[in-house]
């Protein structure tokens, strides 16, 4: 990552450490990336005048103009497909998909072109583009607004996939994703958009494709990403009150996976619970379970357990609290692991 810059054109230089929501942190990160590189474009439905339905791009069109912040036609394949052409032309497009459930019209372009052009051309064409995707449930929405499709993309060679869980990561990771010469799917935990945290804009950020231990513990390890990191941290806090010490790893990068911190943790705790709200079959959680049993076989005191969404279509919102992993389901899995 280049030296951090936060020189906003419309105000005095802000304090280095600010308390921001995830939404505002992404907004600031986008602004910083656009200031640092005139080739960075933001494009998507309603991202300009409106500032996006979640206001993630609020104010960017006003400050950078309509040619750098594009209110696009309502066409996801168009957003992704034209971003491919713009990237080939030398731009660094940041596409917003309004909700994860609407990404599928663009799935063909993502899988057939975005993921494969670098390989197809033996490295002659780079696709430095970011596809921002608000994902996950818990917001009481109608169908197609609460899903977790990240495994499709992690399963596709040529794509990189990350998810942030807190404002500081949101601020840095969006800039690192934009700096990447590989296409990056950037999954944003929409139910956490308005949770606050400190962002130090002078800090040296962790690498984009690195997992991180957020809480140390000795009895069992929880691994999560995106919206389930908060649930896992809360579970660890609750467990501590009962005298159980849980370690929490924030995965951050879903492709490539960075499991070294997980292996290290499991070798110490001997127990692993993977938490994800995506359906569990053939998922990121499955991959982690497989890799950990392969790498940490002799350290494991119990089978790797998964706490995930069910293998159903996302249910009507009145049922979503039953679908989504919560503190109790996580602790129940921890109990089963410890009782093995």
């Amino acid at each position, binding site marked *: 990552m280049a030296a951090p810059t936060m020189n906003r054109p419309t105000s005095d230089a802000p304090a280095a450490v600010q308390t921001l929501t995830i939404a505002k942190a992404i907004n600031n990160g986008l602004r910083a990336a656009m200031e640092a590189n005139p080739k960075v474009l933001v494009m998507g439905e309603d991202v300009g005048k409106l500032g996006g339905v979640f206001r993630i791009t609020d104010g960017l069109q006003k400050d950078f103009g309509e040619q750098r912040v594009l209110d696009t036609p309502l066409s996801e*394949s*168009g957003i992704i*497909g034209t971003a*491919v052409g713009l990237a*080939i032309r030398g*731009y660094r497009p940041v596409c917003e998909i309004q909700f994860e459930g609407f990404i599928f019209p663009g799935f063909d372009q993502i899988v057939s072109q975005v993921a494969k052009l670098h*390989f197809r*051309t033996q490295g002659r064409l780079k696709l430095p583009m970011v596809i921002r995707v608000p994902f996950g449930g818990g917001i009481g929405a109608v169908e197609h607004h609460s899903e977790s499709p990240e495994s499709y993309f992690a399963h596709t*060679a040529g794509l990189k996939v990350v998810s942030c869980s807190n404002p500081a990561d949101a601020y840095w990771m969006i800039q690192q994703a934009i700096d990447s010469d*590989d296409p990056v799917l950037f999954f944003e935990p929409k139910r956490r958009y308005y949770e606050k945290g400190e962002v130090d804009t002078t800090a040296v950020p962790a690498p984009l494709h690195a997992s991180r231990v957020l809480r140390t513990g000795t009895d069992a390890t929880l691994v999560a990403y995106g919206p389930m990191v908060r649930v896992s941290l809360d579970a660890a806090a609750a467990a501590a009150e009962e005298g159980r010490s849980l370690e929490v790893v924030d995965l951050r990068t879903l492709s490539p996976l960075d499991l070294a911190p997980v292996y290290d943790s499991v070798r110490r705790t001997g127990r692993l619970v993977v938490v994800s709200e995506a359906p569990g079959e053939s998922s990121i959680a499955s991959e982690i379970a497989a890799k950990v049993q392969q790498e940490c076989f002799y350290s494991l005191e119990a089978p790797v357990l998964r706490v995930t969404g069910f293998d159903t279509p996302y249910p009507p919102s009145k049922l979503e609290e039953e679908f989504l992993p919560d503190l109790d389901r996580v602790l129940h899995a921890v109990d089963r692991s410890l009782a093995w």
Partner: protein
Amino acid sequence: MSSPEKWTQPGPDSPPATAAAPTAEQVIAGLRATDEGGADLVQLLTPEGERVAHPDFDIDITAEELRGLYRDMVLVRRADREANALQRKGELGLWVPLLGQEAAQIGAGRALKPADMAFPSYREHGVAWCRGIQPHEVLGMFRGTDNGSWDPVEHRFHPYTIVIGNQVLNAAGYAMGQKFDGKVGDDADSEATMCFFGDGATSQGDVHEGFVWAAVYDAPLVFFCQNNQWAISEPTERQSRLPLYQRARGYGFPGIRVDGNDVLATLAVSRWALEECRQGNGPILIEAFTYRMDAHTTSDDPSRYRLSDELELWKLKDPIERVKVHLVKQQWADQDFFDSVEADAEELAITMREHCVNLATPPAERMFSEVYAEGNPVLEAQRDEFLAYHAGFAGGER
């Protein structure tokens, strides 16, 4: 070649081709496709080799230029026939013939200027030729040694796109970039983009979206649709109720149907359209009305869905013959010229054959390279495991 048979040989249960006759609907549709293209068809050189005037799209052409277009068409046809033969001999897994579409592709390809960009589908071997790509350079993907070998930046010719219609959106984005870069207008360094697709692709959502995006962003993009009447077995009537060029009106830009077997008309209309786009008056749709004289690919069998009479009718409208007749009538070329073109074509075919059989299978670890621009430790570990597995065999070979 490892196993081309699996693509080319019918399975044990497939009926012999002669057992399947075209349906009545297919015959009718095919006969419709042999019409003259309608009153709006732009034509400058008739199938009989007569120059005709057009109020909007006439062109001044010198003898030398026309000889050049003739030579281009003969050479790309010879290369196409050679590749087809190489597939039949098992040297290629597949070939996608351009036979019959030489005028459409050479007319469009020669209208492009060096600074322009082109996005092909997978049949544009004639356009590739115009962009300075040797015919043997497209063989790797059909032999299975690469997925496309030319440098798209150097040649300003995108890799072949196999998924139908994807490239139309990529081209729209590229053309938007040309506009954002200030390359549209009166300046001498203005640019345009030309995008190639077929009649079948016009049913794809990506083509519709490409039309919408290019229109609302005033992109300098020429949509060049080669309507060769057939999308594998489906006639154009299965894709559209109205002539394809008329669709442009609904998107708010001009649509022109040109005789795609007339290299002069295709060149004239393409030059005009590209210049309009460079000036900022894009996008524009060109429908080149032509005919796929061979199969969709070497794996296809047109006798199952169209009558050979149809092909015979289109042979009378051959894109190369009419130019030859005109050159002779005008006394713009003598037998020595035609002989020299034939000799060049043979030499090209020999070069192709030699390059083709010498295209080596790449080392297996190639499949792990250039998947990512910035690497991927998980994939690198997988590659190392693969290499160690191979190295475990005696002599390092399986």
